[in-house]
């Protein structure tokens, strides 16, 4: 202890105190405060930037979700539209088909009716002609047969004979 006190130099103590305090105040004013402020500001800046990035990310997420939703809706709408169109097409086709069927049936019916009528007419006509022809032929035959007296008698006889037999 005595040795320690012996080593103690008041001059060195004085200068150390003075110089150190001067250094402390100078550094505090010109170095530590600017440095710590700069570091703090930077840290704040980084924190803010991170927060902003997080916010932006969330916003992006929201936007994405919106986009997704809109896309989904659009897709649904499109599907619906397509479905409707398809249905409409099918309806139109089926309607058209029905119409056509009806039309066709009508035409066929008319045609058949016409054909029937024509056939009837043709048959009637044919009958008339056949009757006419038959009459003509019969007239001619009778005329030929009846041109000769013998033949007329003979015919009568034959006819009578036939009548007898039957």
């Amino acid at each position: 202890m005595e040795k320690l006190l012996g080593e103690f130099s008041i001059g060195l103590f004085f200068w150390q105190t003075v110089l150190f305090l001067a250094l402390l105040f100078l550094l505090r004013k010109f170095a530590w405060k600017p440095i710590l402020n700069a570091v703090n500001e930077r840290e704040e800046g980084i924190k803010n930037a991170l927060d902003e990035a997080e916010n932006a990310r969330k916003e992006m997420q929201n936007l994405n979700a919106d986009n997704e939703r809109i896309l989904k809706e659009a897709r649904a709408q499109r599907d619906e539209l397509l479905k409707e169109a398809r249905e409409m097409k099918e309806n139109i086709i089926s309607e058209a088909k029905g119409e056509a069927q009806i039309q066709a049936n009508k035409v066929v019916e008319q045609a058949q009716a016409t054909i029937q009528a024509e056939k009837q007419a043709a048959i009637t006509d044919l009958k008339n002609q056949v009757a006419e022809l038959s009459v003509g032929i019969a007239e001619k035959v009778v005329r030929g047969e009846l041109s000769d007296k013998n033949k007329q008698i003979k015919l009568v006889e034959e006819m009578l004979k036939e009548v007898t037999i039957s």
Partner: protein
Amino acid sequence: MQLILSNDYYLGNMQRKNLVKALTLLLLVFAFSAKAQHETTVEEHGDKDIKTTIKEYIQHHLQDSYDFSLTSYTNDNGEHVYIGAPLPVVLIDGGLQVFSSSKFHHGETVAEVGENYYKVYHGKIYKTDAAGTINLDDHHHPTNAKPLDFSITKNVAVIFLVGLLMFFLFRGLANSYAKNNGIATGSGRFFEPIILYIRDDIAIPNIGEEKYKKYMPYLLTVFFFIWIINMLGLTPIGVNVTNSISVTVALALITFLITNFTGTKDYWLHIFDPLGSSMPWIAKIPLYIILIPIEVLGIFIKPFSLLIRLYANIKAGHIVLMSLIGLMFIFKSWLGSPLSFGLAFAISLIELLVALLQAYIFTMLSALYFGFASETHEHAEEHKGEIEHL
């Protein structure tokens, strides 16, 4: 110059087999040039026992001095030649006396200033007569008058230089932040993590988020001051500032003053009423007869431990290092000298760590004391809990 001298010496006085040792010495001279050179100079005297000279040299190295001498040697005429610069001596002895330390001729002569005569004896200035007589008492202490000594000694000069260095270093660092948008450049890349470490791992945990800011300038200054000055002590310039008790007293005193002047009500309450409302006042009286003196003593012991720790660690480190270097000259053998060299090298590496560690411990403990001083939470509650627990 010195290298040649030592080689001449070894080759001249010893046999060729000592060449290796001379080479070892050369290595040593490179590693610890200033220190080693002093050893050889001392050895050249030849009239003293080598152990004594080494011991004296170590003593001398640990002392402050009035001039900034890097090394010295004896020239061909047998005169001591010092390489370095004299420093101003400032004495208060019936008025201010300022003169150059060159007047002492490195303690060898009496300095005549006006009508007064001064002589350096064991590193201190004493007032003497014209012949420089030092009167010793029974305990070999001089009885001469000691003028108040405010000299710019080697240590003061180093403190001043370190202050300048720190100021420009950290001022530059602060400017680099301003210039570069809050991002450090250059040496700031090295210092910024240290500053942040002191803030985040020393100041904030010990003092608390709200109050640490006002202590930061002191903690940073004291950390870098002690660290840089400890590191300088390991260079061959051979300065030893933190192993002067005056310096550590000054540092610890500032910690002490800051602690007690920023002490909150709770801090003082903790000292003078440590038990608080945990028990009736009548029961506290017998306890307080013991507790209060202990607490009051604690106020002083805390900074005292700071100053002794720093002083003793650095001083011990220097003594060990210097003794190991000195051992090389005592052994003068194939085995001993390289071993001492290796040990000295290892110790210097450890000393590098100690330089940082002591700065860290001083800062850390200062922060801890500031934390005690600035705490505001309820002690009574805490102590109540402690007592109930018991």
